[in-house]
Structures are given as structure tokens and as C-alpha cells.
């Protein structure tokens, strides 16, 4: 999908990708740490809707995420954590479209509690439900 106006409504079964820009967010056994799902201060957690994007186009979008970091320090896209919209809804969170000029599939996970410990608890549940997909050709994850 390349035009935000054509994007279909978000459905429970569709997949979301949280791009992994930190090796530390993934354990050596390729499970995802809660750190990857802790929301930022504005409580809008960035994800990308898979929709009908090919794997190649999905990785290209992820690569754009790391460009901003790469200007300040070495950074690489390690992979992505995939989970369904249903897993988000089960934690009383919402998935809302938030198209960006370079990523029309961009969305936010919203509705986070203000309490930091409660955020961590939800982030742990999302991380446990997510499936890590390493970026082809990315460096191996570090040992714990």
C-alpha cells in the first residue's frame, strides 16, 4: 500500500510490525523483551501495518526508521516483532492509523495507562505474544 487514502480499516486479524532497532530488545533465544514495547512519553507506540506489503517492502520501511539514528551513532535494523491487532485489543489498547509521508502503513498503539508499572506489565504481555523475525542478513543476536 502506498496511498494512505486507500488503506482499509484496521481489523483484529491483521499483523503489526514493531521494528527492532536495538539488539538489546531481543534475547539470545529470539524472544522479545518488554523494552521493545514500552511506549514513549506521548504514549503513542509506533508500529507498521503489514497489510499486503511484500517482505521486501516491509523491510524497506523498517530501514527508514533507523536512518534517523544512523546520523547520530551506528545503528542497524535487527528485525521486527510481529503481533496481531487482536493481541493489542486484548490489553484494552487501541491500534489507530497514523500515516507518515514515508510510511503510509504507520499506526500507533494508544490507550496506555499512565502508571509506568502498568505500562511495563502490558509491554511484557505484548512482548510475550510477539514473534521475532530477524532481518535477513542482520548480525546474530548477542548472548545473554
Amino acid at each position, binding site marked *: 500500500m502506498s496511498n494512505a487514502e486507500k488503506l482499509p480499516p484496521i481489523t483484529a486479524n491483521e499483523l503489526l510490525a514493531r521494528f527492532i532497532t536495538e539488539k538489546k530488545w531481543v534475547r539470545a533465544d529470539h524472544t522479545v523483551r518488554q523494552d521493545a514495547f514500552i511506549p514513549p512519553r506521548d504514549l503513542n507506540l509506533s508500529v507498521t501495518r503489514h497489510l499486503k506489503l511484500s517482505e521486501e517492502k516491509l523491510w524497506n520501511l523498517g530501514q527508514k526508521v*533507523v536512518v534517523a539514528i544512523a546520523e*547520530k551513532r551506528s545503528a542497524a535494523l535487527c528485525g521486527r516483532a510481529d503481533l496481531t491487532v487482536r493481541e493489542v485489543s486484548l490489553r484494552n489498547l487501541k491500534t489507530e492509523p497514523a500515516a507518515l509521508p514515508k510510511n503510509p502503513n504507520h499506526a500507533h498503539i494508544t490507550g496506555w495507562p499512565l502508571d*509506568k508499572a502498568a505500562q511495563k506489565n502490558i509491554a511484557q504481555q505484548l512482548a510475550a505474544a510477539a514473534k521475532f523475525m530477524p532481518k535477513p542478513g542482520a548480525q546474530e543476536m548477542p548472548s545473554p
Partner: protein
Amino acid sequence: MILEMAASTLISIGAISTRGSSETARFVAEQAHEGRRLLQASYSLGLDGKGVFDELCEVAEERRAPNWDGYGAEPVSEEAYRLAYRFLEALPLGTPAPTVGAEPDGHLTLEWYRSPRRTLSVSVSPEGELHYAALLPGPSKAYGTEPFVGDVPVRILELIRDVTAA
């Protein structure tokens, strides 16, 4: 006998502080601190020997700039690093080593992990708060916030035990 008791005390409780102001009290506290420092350096008992303090330093150093995650993360502050260091020092000797990470709000995290659904994460904030959350079998609530004033809260020690117990 006295040495055995001292070692036992050093292992079973966290960092030793003193409220005494006499020369003797200070001497005892200094000796206890030195003994504990040496035990921390051992591989079997101490987190230092397992490289956790080095990992903490590395994680904090690499995340001192804003937007270190590409999503607009806050930098890890010197205060967050200092408090996380003190928290690790205060853990009882023999505590399994956590892995160190960072969160978008600049908190440092310490994780004890057995499986994705049996894990504990403790965030150390620059304001001296410990935000913890655990996934464990059973329905009990396992998250909350405790102040860090030098001693590791009992609830967090219990959760470390529950997560890491065989």
C-alpha cells in the same frame, strides 16, 4: 565463628549501611563494605564477577544521546545510571545476574528471565523510583512502584526468587 557469621550476613542481606557515628561504627561499616566489595568481584557470588556492572556502563554510555532508538527516546541520565549501579550493589550476594537494558523514557532496566511468560523487569528512574512488573504463572498482580532509598524492596527480592527459582 565471627568470620563465618560476617560472611553469612554479607550474603543474605544487601549493602550494609550504618547509622552509628562513632569511630568503631565507621570502622565496622568500612570493613563490611570492603568485604562485600571483594565478594561482589567473585564469579560465584557477585554481580561484578558476572560482568553486570560493565554491561550497565555500556548500556548507559550508548544511550546518552536523545532518540537512541529512532522513535524519539529520552537519553539515559547520569542519575539513572548512578541509581541503577547502587541498586545492583544493594542486591544480596548470590542473586542471579540480570540483563541490562533501557527504555524510551531514559530509565535503565534490569531483567531476570526464565521464559517469555516467567520474567521480571525492574526500571530504575532518575527520580529514584523502581517500577517493576513480572509475568508469572497464576493470576496474582505482579507490578508496582517502590521508592529506592538504598535497600532493595522485599517485594522485588521475592519476585526475583519466584522468577529464577528452578
